[in-house]
């Protein structure tokens, strides 16, 4: 495959000595490496979609079996908090896209500030989620045998809250992981590791963060609204 690529053949003839720190020697050139990095990230994001697919399927099946229960369950959730969290995540996605753009343009200081705003949004999201969870713990809307809520007298009510906790819980875990990755990337940008000439890790971290936003875009209407 690489032999058909004129750039690759050209770079090989240059030799492997004195490569920049970010280029691995087993790639023909930086273009091939960047291509492989992006492809690897998209493959990972594909598996992430399939990971959440199981939970979305569980939601769909039980909603089909217990439509009235799921509507009654959705009415128990706080639409205002869910809506604020949606706006927070969409805004964080915007900040990370802008932050990546700034790093790519060589504006490192701006990049660090924007990536920090993204992490701040993640923390706001988790704090709001904490208040939502605390309320539900208090009301006994817990999954499985811990379910003690008596407000919905329909079959399958505990299943709605099990689906709610599993899907938002897995999503919240992704928020924590995504924010940690962004924090690590931000410190690397701050140290000057990434800038105009090399910024692919920031791009891939941003992709992960956008996926977290993407999943919430579906979870919010499914759980809170309908």
């Amino acid at each position, binding site marked *: 495959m690489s032999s058909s690529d004129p750039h690759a053949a050209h770079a090989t003839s240059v030799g492997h000595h004195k490569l920049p720190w970010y280029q691995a020697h087993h790639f023909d050139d930086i273009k091939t490496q960047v291509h492989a990095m992006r492809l690897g990230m998209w493959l990972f994001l594909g598996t992430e979609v399939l990971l959440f697919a199981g939970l979305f399927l569980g939601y769909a099946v039980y909603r089909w079996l217990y439509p009235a229960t799921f509507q009654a369950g959705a009415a128990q959730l706080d639409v205002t908090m869910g809506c604020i969290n949606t706006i927070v995540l969409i805004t964080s996605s915007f900040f990370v896209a802008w932050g990546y753009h700034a790093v790519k343009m060589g504006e490192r200081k701006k990049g660090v500030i924007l990536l920090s705003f993204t992490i701040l949004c993640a923390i706001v999201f988790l704090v709001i989620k904490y208040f939502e969870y605390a309320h539900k713990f208090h009301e006994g809307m817990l999954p499985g045998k811990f379910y003690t809520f008596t407000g919905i007298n329909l079959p399958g009510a505990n299943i709605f809250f099990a689906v709610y906790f599993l899907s938002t819980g897995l999503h919240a875990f992704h928020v924590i992981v995504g924010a940690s990755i962004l924090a690590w990337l931000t410190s690397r940008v701050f140290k000057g590791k990434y800038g105009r000439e090399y910024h692919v890790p920031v791009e891939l971290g941003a992709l992960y963060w956008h996926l977290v936003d993407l999943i919430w875009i579906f979870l919010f*209407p499914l759980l809170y609204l309908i």
Partner: protein
Amino acid sequence: MADKQQMTTGSHEEHHEVHGISRYVAIWLILLALTVLTVVTGKMDLGAANIYIAMAIATTKATLVVLFFMHLWDEGGVNRLVFAVSILFLLVLILGVFGDLTTRIPFSLPNSGPIP
């Protein structure tokens, strides 16, 4: 040598078109507007249409995020293919399970009550 590296990095940059942030701002505003729209339509009682409207808005928002925030609009073939295939398998999973569920005899379902 250093120039050579600079040049190759630059060439992938050309491939990845450089836009200003105005496009990100536009997408952000559209996403916020669609969020308001989904909350408003979600509060209306439209019967069975509610879920279809909500899913249509969510899919539109997701498409905007994938194409413009995640750069698949500018990105070349294989990354698009990978993501499209994962969505395809998500649909296969849902269609397969619902094909089974909707064609079962009623009392094999958990919500059908006692067997007559």
